[in-house]
């Protein structure tokens, strides 16, 4: 229909001017080379300064430019347009479920609040040795697939449970980090961490929909980490019941 043209349908909202958000269509010459969605946004912004989005590293490690690209969350800077074009068209929307500040920029306060809630830092109150605390390579291996999270929010904002209960369900990103510290041989607050997660919402609102795994741009698996937390919680509960019985 557009031949060598590319139609970009962009979510626009400027709170100072627009009562409601709307989709604006831009038609541009199809770039000669395959470019990233972020490059496409740069091209549009050169024509229209008012377009707003976040970006920083432009190589997939800082997590700034998570957005919804043709219906799927991803990082604009490492998503080639060739991989997402459908009938010469690309539709770009902000990450779903969070309040929109402007255009593709969402308010991530609730997302970060969940991250802070799980106490995302090592807790070990024993006196630190003069050198490093020792950790075997096997113990360290347990952190692989967990610590690499870039907090882009692609996973949590693709999760229907997080859409429903963003205040009470911790969400896949923060749960992945919760498990990162539960799995760290140097962290001594396992019991406290589990207790803080044992209510019906924090973890148990995860119903294994797996959208998180499907969209993670770093190939991480929050669903698996949540499963591990659930088994730790079950085991912990049994232990408590047994000790109560005694």
């Amino acid at each position: 229909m557009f031949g060598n043209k590319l139609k970009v349908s962009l979510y626009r909202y400027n709170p100072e001017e627009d009562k409601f958000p709307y989709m604006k269509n831009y038609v541009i010459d199809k770039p000669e080379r395959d470019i990233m969605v972020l490059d496409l946004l740069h091209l549009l912004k050169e024509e229209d300064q008012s377009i707003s989005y976040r970006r920083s590293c432009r190589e997939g490690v800082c997590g700034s430019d998570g957005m919804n690209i043709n219906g799927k969350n991803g990082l604009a800077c490492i998503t080639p347009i060739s991989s997402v074009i459908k009938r010469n068209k690309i539709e770009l929307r902000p990450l779903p479920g969070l309040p929109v500040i402007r255009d593709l920029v969402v308010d991530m306060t609730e997302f970060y609040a969940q991250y802070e809630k799980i106490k995302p830092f090592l807790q070990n109150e024993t006196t630190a040795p003069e050198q490093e605390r020792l950790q075997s390579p096997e113990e360290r291996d347990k952190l692989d697939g967990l610590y690499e999270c870039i907090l882009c929010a692609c996973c949590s904002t693709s999760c229907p449970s997080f859409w429903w209960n963003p205040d009470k369900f911790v969400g896949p990103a923060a749960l992945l980090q919760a498990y990162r510290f539960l799995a760290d041989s140097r962290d001594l607050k396992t019991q406290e961490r589990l207790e803080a997660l044992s209510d019906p919402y924090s973890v148990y609102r995860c119903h294994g929909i797996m959208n998180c795994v499907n969209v993670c741009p770093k190939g991480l698996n929050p669903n698996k980490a949540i499963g591990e937390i659930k088994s730790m919680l079950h085991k912990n509960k049994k232990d408590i019941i047994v000790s109560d019985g005694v």
Partner: protein
Amino acid sequence: MNNIFTNNIKKIEFDALIIGGGGSGMRASLELAKSGLKTAVVSKVFPTRSHTVSAQGGITCAIASADPNDDWRWHMYDTVKGADFIGDQDAIEYLCSEGPKAVFELEHMGLPFSRFENGRIYQRPFGGQSKDFGKGGQAARTCAAADRTGHALLHTLYQNNVKEGANFLNEWFAVDLVKNSKDEVTGVIAFSIENGEVAYLKAQATVLATGGAGRIYASTTNALINTGDGLAMALRAGFPAQDMEMWQFHPTGIYGAGSLVTEGCRGEGGFLINKDGERFMERYAPNVKDLAGRDVVARSMVLEILEGRGCGDKNDHIYLKLDHLGAEVLNSKLPGICELSRTFAHVDPIYEPIPVVPTCHYMMGGTPTNISGQAFTRINDEDHLIPGLFSAGEAACVSVHGANRLGGNSLLDLVVFGRATGKHIQSELKSGGGVDSATKSDIEKSLERLNKLNDSSNGHDPADVKKELQECMQNYFGVFRRGEFMKKGLDQLNELKEKVDNLHLKDKSDAFNTSRVEAIELQNLFEVAESTAISAYQRTESRGAHARDDYPDRDDENWLCHTIYDPISKKVSKRGVNFEPNKVEAFPPKVRTY
């Protein structure tokens, strides 16, 4: 955002203010958060989006894990030599001797370092590392968390700032320093990117921890946010910059994207070709060809481009040819490069050459500071501390990297000097130090630039001017420099100055207006670019990263010194290098060979 008047500007008071939420800023803030002083980190991005996150290889430090006999003095020797002898030896001594403490602290904070079988931190070999003062062979001194050390470090620092309840002004953009009549720094003018609110953030101590400015060049490995905001603020306030001609380049960054392509490609038998398909390195370095030193290769590439033999429509890049190596070699030995190249150069190296250009990587220069992070200016050729102003990390020039930084030393610089700065501010403020208030007209002055931009009804398009600036720097002040070319570049910068001062901000809205941010960033880039250009033109020798073909030799008689760029006179003066470490004998300059 309407014109802002000092009458209605909001004032928020702090003890200490840290501009920048990367490695050095968050290490300093961690120190201050624990102290009870009222502190805030002002960061234009959420802190974990800072460029520290992109560091890969590791943090170099003599923690004696890979080699139980390792010694920080050996690390010091390597760093002094790597700096081509214009790194300050008191600062390098501090870096290398305090380093282990700073690294162990990171581990205690939870940084997920890779491990050796014995449970200690994993260390790998890096370039320029030696044992026994260059006599004992290759050392393995770079502590690593796989190839994501920067990410692990930055997230660990953010996590510990959360733990200590540090105060963040995230997505706030600092525009200019505020100075009182005594030339003391009393804080910054900043605005919230989210809603456009402008405020005078008043502080007794202001730390510039804004990182590098690789975006002055068209091709850089740096993040889009690396626009030298802190350094530019200092320059606009009339404070000097040191060693601005010293920029580290890598020969093979992917054209356009800037992602690095390892030297290992050429090690495996790849080579560079010009638009005629000629393997031109045979002319420049007949013996080792494409495996000549980085500076030699990069210089040859730029010459090919300047002489019209570059590739592509604009003849502005070079091809790295790998296809003759065959799919098997490429897939088994260079899989990461293949993937990177497919993702960012849109070519498959199995079939096509990779377009590459020498790529700006790191700013060795910056705001001059002492080892406590205190910034200083020069009066009658002597250092004079600037009350209220501090700097750390890539934004600062302390100077531990001199004319050339060693790999793995940037992350160590961040934590060691971020930490030292935080500690110093704590003791200074607790013992009653501080600065006088600024007057209304002082604040007015710092609002001028923002107001002018907000008032602009016509003028130049920031996106166009930025491209011109980056191409000018890339062409005339790249890896390889020559007086006559630099003169052309300086003339072009003079023309650009008028444009940069008269940008047209079309979008005047308040909510998350990234155009306003980008216009101010462009002005910051210009300040850094200008100081680089003038300093590079003045240093008539070749040393470390500063390679001039009209002055190809190192000239210790005249240039064993720092350059100090004065932004008011736009003149360059010399400053002596420190050869007085406290615990060891100084390392005297000698011919630098590897």
